[in-house]
């Protein structure tokens, strides 16, 4: 079967679709400098005491 222009464009699109649609992959994230929650100062009194958390 002859390759028409229509078929050619379709094939090119099918070939590139995974690259265009696929999400960009990241192993390491960029370091965001803005924390989305409330931020306060370090509390020296708290630091001196062992945490209530396990580990």
């Amino acid at each position, binding site marked *: 079967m002859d390759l028409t222009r229509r078929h050619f464009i379709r094939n090119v699109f099918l070939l590139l679709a995974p690259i265009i649609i696929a999400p960009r992959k990241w192993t390491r994230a960029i370091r965001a*400098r803005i924390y989305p929650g*409330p931020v306060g100062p370090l509390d020296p009194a708290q630091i001196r005491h062992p945490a209530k958390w396990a580990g």
Partner: protein
Amino acid sequence: MNVQCELCPKACIIAPGQSGECRIRVNIDGTLAAVTYGHPCSVHVDPVEKKPMYHFLPGTGILSLATVGCNLHCKNCQNWEISQENPENVRAAELPPEKIPALAVEYGCSSVAYTYSEPLAWYEYTLDGCIRAREARLRNVIVTAGYANRPPLEKLFKYVDGANIDIKAMSDQFYRDVCGATLKPVLNACVLAKSAGVWVELTNLVIPTLNDSDDDLKKLAQWIVENMGNDTPLHFSRFFPQYKMRNLPETPADTLDRAKQIAIAEGIQHVYVGNLARPEGNNTYCPSCNRLVVERRGFAVIRNEITAGKCPACGTEIKGIWI
């Protein structure tokens, strides 16, 4: 545009404005961002024995920090208020990695622990903290579930001195049902850490009816002996009902004693019992002559007779990082 995070085996595909399962790796305008970077919600000086690390600078304090976030969702999580919470709801302090070494020194610590939640989920902060601490001749410890892909772990382990890795069970089904994860990557992380020269201690939280059969405990001990070596310390920890697992009772003391006996019978030299007062549960004995070499009460070291990493009586090397 969606992004895919390749830090851990979950490989979350994240839509703009959304986060991965860990809640802290966010797609901001098509870029994956670590939003808790440099903002720990917990900073404390703990005894290193609390991690637990028993063969790592015993009797010393360790600067311990965490941001919110975890890529596992264990129904029995002890620290769920920070591990399973959104950063928007938790107050944090500003502590960029470059300031960690000075803070550790200020509080008399010779090591830094990345702990409490999941340091692999806040990977970039852990990595940069480890690099800065190493530059300042401090030691680094991670306390982790070990659920990450090999390339980021390989990079991180270059800067890590000690790790306590939690093997939650030797059953993939347990990991899927209780933690929302899988077993194999965790075991791979343990082996990788050991092969990278990291001092590894292992923890197993023993939960009644879920992972406390003789077969479960034997499988764990056998895997450790075959893959990590029988000189790898194993900490059995007592379960307490909390978070989404309040239907089970706390682990009976007898169960922990049985776990310890099984592990010893399989050949593990150093087996400890945590979250439970046992007169001899926390002491370290020489594997050759059985002399008491480190005596502990709770997290306190009463005496440490290990000399240059050896038993003072017979000279047998006791594996660990002692000075």
